[in-house]
């Protein structure tokens, strides 16, 4: 077969044009051991993170290990991702590493650490395509939110009940199919009826902005990585109208 020697008239590799220069993670702790804890999170090494956390807990309080090692490490990972240096798997592995350390700190404290707020997440009834939700869960968790994970193929009533019981700052819905996303306005309607005006972020697959913004409470989530920012807005008191105005349209 004949091959071209120059493909510049056929396609443009924009990804190579915008490749971000490699950069090292920044120093985030003044304490040498806690910096090592943070570094293990940045590397996404959960075994090393657990080992170093155990070591740090001999000398530091659990909250110091969390606030000066584990969380600053995760924040550094978020920065590297935001700047295009890291890919999603590196963020997920870092989240696993942070969680391994936090679990040990919580064990030492004898209680769970305080989270920023609760977010209920689910994938629509009749839909089993939940990898988007899995990513949303991991990112919310990595950013300090408590995730009430209802899983996939979740009936409308179960989502509404979880919102009633947990009073989350935000609820999310994922759907791949247009014929399953029809559950979303039903959920929104029931939440409204109960007086629960919780911002309801819907996204995934064929879920469109036009559809989600056609019902009250609905905010369209274009990408999973928007979830932490949206949850921060909800936590700060933005209502669904303000969030829709910021993220959609």
């Amino acid at each position: 077969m004949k091959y071209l020697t120059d493909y510049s008239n056929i396609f443009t590799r924009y990804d190579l044009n915008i490749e971000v220069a490699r950069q090292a993670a920044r120093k985030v702790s003044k304490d040498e051991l806690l910096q090592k804890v943070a570094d293990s999170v940045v590397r996404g090494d959960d075994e090393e993170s657990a080992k170093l956390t155990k070591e740090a807990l001999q000398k530091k309080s659990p909250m110091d290990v969390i606030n000066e090692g584990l969380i600053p490490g995760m924040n550094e990972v978020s920065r590297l991702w935001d700047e295009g240096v890291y890919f999603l798997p590196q963020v997920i592995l870092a989240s696993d590493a942070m969680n391994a350390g936090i679990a040990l700190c919580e064990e030492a404290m004898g209680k769970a650490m305080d989270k920023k707020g609760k977010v209920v997440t689910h994938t629509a009834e009749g839909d089993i395509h939940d990898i988007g939700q899995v990513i949303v869960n991991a990112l919310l968790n990595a950013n300090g939110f408590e995730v009430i994970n209802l899983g996939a193929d979740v009936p409308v009533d179960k989502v509404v009940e979880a919102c009633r019981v947990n009073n989350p700052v935000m609820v999310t819905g994922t759907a791949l199919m247009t014929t399953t996303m029809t559950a979303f306005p039903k959920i929104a309607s029931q939440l409204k009826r109960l007086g629960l005006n919780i911002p309801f972020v819907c996204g995934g697959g064929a879920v469109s902005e036009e559809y989600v913004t056609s019902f009250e409470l609905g905010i369209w989530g274009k990408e999973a990585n928007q979830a932490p920012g949206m949850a921060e807005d909800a936590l700060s008191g933005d209502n669904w109208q303000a969030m829709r105005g910021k993220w959609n349209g």
Partner: protein
Amino acid sequence: MKFSSEMAYKSADEMMFGTAKKPVKTKRGLVFGGGHVIPEIVPHPRPGSEKTMKSLLREYERANGDALERCVIVGHPQLLIENEHIFQMTHNPKWGGEIAAQTAKQMDDYLQKYGLKAAYRATPADLRKPDMVDMRDSDYTREVIESFAECAKYADVVSIESMGGKEIFDHAIIRNDIAGLLFGQAVLGGIDMEWMWNQIVAIAKKYNCIAGGDTNCAEANTAMFMAGGFLSKDVPHTLAALSRAICASRTIVAYECGATGPTKDCAYEDPIIKSVTGVPISCEGKTSACAHADLCGNVIAAVTDVWSNEAVEYHDMFGGTTTAVFTEILGYDVAAMNASIDLGYQKEFQACLVNSDKYRGCHGFMLSPDNAWQIGKALVDNNESLYSRGKAAAMKCGELMLGDPKLKLSVFEKESLEGYMKDMKALPDKEADFIDMCLKKYAKVKGFQPKAYGL
């Protein structure tokens, strides 16, 4: 089940669009892989139409009917219509059967009235989410099997997008874990497919229906779409390409169990499958932009026998409804391909398709006929187990990507790929050892039930 041990094609040069070593004929006279390419349209119902069987029947009557009508309006001689079941059609198996019966009647009418040769592919939805149900013993499992029986009575072809290994795959793909992809896709996926496809083939035989094929849509396509285009930072393209090579080990199981093709359109691994099995394949590329973006819009057509659009929701457009419009587009695409065949220009046409995308990205590169054939060869040369052939296919794919300087890789993509190659080399040689390792490593993955795979 006997693993494939030889290539259907002696070289990639022999592979051409429109012709397969093992053509398949339908009851209305379509021949897949018989010398010309056939268009395949996949209508999807609008939200709200799924409420009742009556409303869904009406939706498909219009959507499928518009496609048939447009063929007559613009003179397309042949058409395959696929209905990928929405949840309700498989959850209520009678619904899928009624829609198949209705469409078969429409096709009979068009054949009688205009001489249009059409065929219907029914694709029940695999409702079995591995972390939520027992793959072999659940209500959803029974509904899927019953759905095949209902549809096979009327459909020309039945297919599925099976879900085996999805729980491990989802865990692994977002953790850069190549061992998890091999375990989820090649091993668990292959085991589940053998269990499922022996039943599908038996049902198809009983009703004189064609057992089409399977696709790793749930996994390799997830990887490909997460890798995305040139702006995505979710998954490295090199990992998505390895995932595609690995999945050939499980997708081929359908044909080893007796499926004959036409294969499932969204199985981008199909050029590899064709190189080994010789069954007619269905592919999708630029004409599936209505459903998703990919980086292999033309090259994926290079050896295809059926040309599809993945799925388009039924709506009005300026030029008619979406199913009519996309049928027209697909039909003209294959008219150009078929004209090249009849003029003797097919090699030149194929070269244009390949040059369009072979070096656009990793998927186009590995699915280019020459590389797809080499990956297929690695698969059959290492056919001791689902694991060994999946790993060999991935290693070959990696070697090809690293070995061709025309395929440009970013520093991150290249380093990632070198890491996966190193990880694969460090894995056990024997499948039994690999499974033992994985059963321990993934014991805590949410919902993983080894016994659902007979492990």
